[in-house]
């Protein structure tokens, strides 16, 4: 099964918005629902670059997309790999897959089909700033980012 016509329309809309606000992001393997990903670079205020991958859900836009930081390998202030932390409340991390860090951005109970990929990437930008704040100060990420109540 391919994308429905509504989903194709939605994917176009998403890419259209991304081309304006996050122009480095492009769509890969877009033919097969469940395999499509969107990948691009986010740059922090300090100028560091991160490659970010967003998995487009097969039931787009009805569930929360998985977002991973593909590179560089993220470490905390003390040199430990963030992926080794596993699921982490203070660092806003979901269970990593294949050693790649997954960011907790929107929780399922706060998800709505009105949330676009661009809004998610804004949250990832905020997470990256908080992450760099952590590297500077040692405070956990939730010192900078409030949690959504479940």
């Amino acid at each position, binding site marked *: *099964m391919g994308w*429905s016509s*509504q989903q194709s*329309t*939605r994917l176009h*809309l998403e890419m259209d918005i991304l081309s304006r606000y996050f122009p480095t992001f492009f769509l890969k393997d877009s033919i097969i629902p469940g395999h499509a990903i969107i990948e691009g670079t986010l740059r922090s205020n300090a100028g560091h670059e991160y490659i970010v991958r967003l998995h487009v859900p*097969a*039931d787009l*836009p*009805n*569930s929360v997309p998985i977002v991973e930081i593909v590179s560089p390998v993220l470490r905390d202030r003390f040199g430990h790999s963030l992926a080794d932390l596993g*699921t*982490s*409340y203070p660092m806003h*991390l*979901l*269970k990593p897959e294949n050693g790649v860090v997954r960011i*907790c951005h929107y*929780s*399922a*109970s706060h*998800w*709505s*089909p*009105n949330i*676009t990929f661009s809004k998610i990437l804004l949250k990832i930008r905020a997470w990256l700033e908080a992450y760099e704040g952590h590297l500077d100060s040692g405070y956990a990420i939730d010192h900078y980012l409030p949690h959504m109540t*479940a």
Partner: protein
Amino acid sequence: MTPLVYVFEEQVRDLLSQAGDVRLLDGVAYGFDDWTVFHAYTEKPSFTPSGHICPCVAMRSDATGFVDEEKLMLQVRSRVDPDGGPIVVLLVGTGVADSPSCRALVLTEKGVAGADTRFVPRRSELFSRNTGLLETSALAEKKVVIVGLGSGGSPIALELARAGIGHFTLIDFDRLELGNISRHVCGVNDLGRYKTLAVRDQLLQKNPFAEVSTMEVNINQALSQVEDAVAASDLLIVASDNDQSRFNLNQMSLNNNKVALYGRAITRAAGGDVLRVRPWKGPCYNCIFSSGLIDGREEEMSQKRQALAILPAYVEEDKINTMIQVGLSSDIAPIANMMTKMALVELSRGIETGMSTVDEDLASDFYVWANRREEAYANWPRMGFKWTHPSILRWYGARVDRDPNCLVCGGHLEEEPAT
């Protein structure tokens, strides 16, 4: 007391229509109350029967109607071993005006006793009492998809079967657990079973002629299969327990231009809400979700699986357990009842029934109910004697319009599907 034996007229007709010289046939019977009442079947019933099982032998008697009872009883005794219990013997024939007739005998160690026989009538007669309020023959043709067969969906399914709806597709992948029993139409007899199959048996108890298909799938992972069922239906009823499924079903309802009804209970079933989506004519589920109308009205968490599905993985076990707080069955009942009525209004559309004035009243697409002055209703005044202020135990319709910025049904779509 003379034993009483119930027989399905449809089965008797089937037996009579069989060609050939079959004289004795093994069926099955279920006895109740010290073997005073029996339900006898010439073939396996289509639903799960209750009662104590005992043998049943059916015989197609000749047109002359003469049966040598003594000889027959010897034949029956040599055929089945009742193990101390009774044997029900059915003598099936054709009576006046080609109507089927059936005489029942109950054979025990003490001897043979004639029984009173009653037919369970065919479809057309079963719902004759509804005539006038509901056009039941038209409703028998209607197809309903019900997603979620828990404390909300199961009573709706049952009520619609009682009203004479003839076709059901039941979708749920949960099994009935001990913790569900107090709020579910099924009981300990059905522990461990898929809710779909257990509810199907309950439906067939109310309407043995209903066609019930079931799908034991997680709808979020079986989208095309579920959409096929929605496309083939007249109405979609959503009593599932998570937003992802409601978002997916909302899209299917819009794609296929099928009216959908959504119901939920809020925390501890302090109240609930019901939404009717008339695709492209009124607000969709996403319009309501983004409208702020349900903000602060957190959904009731009734089981761990439900909580795990929506909570981030780092939420601790303790917190999850404290979130699971359920209300009473009587708190869910008004919500299920409202959905049933709205379903009957939708299914009766275009048919002249007593439901049409109800349709005029249900001008709103979104309704709110309060069971107790707590949670979202904590600041409501007491009911007292006034009619003019909000109160528990009454329905309130809210005016909600389509959201032009809704990313599901709003203006970004080039065109709406042809209706």
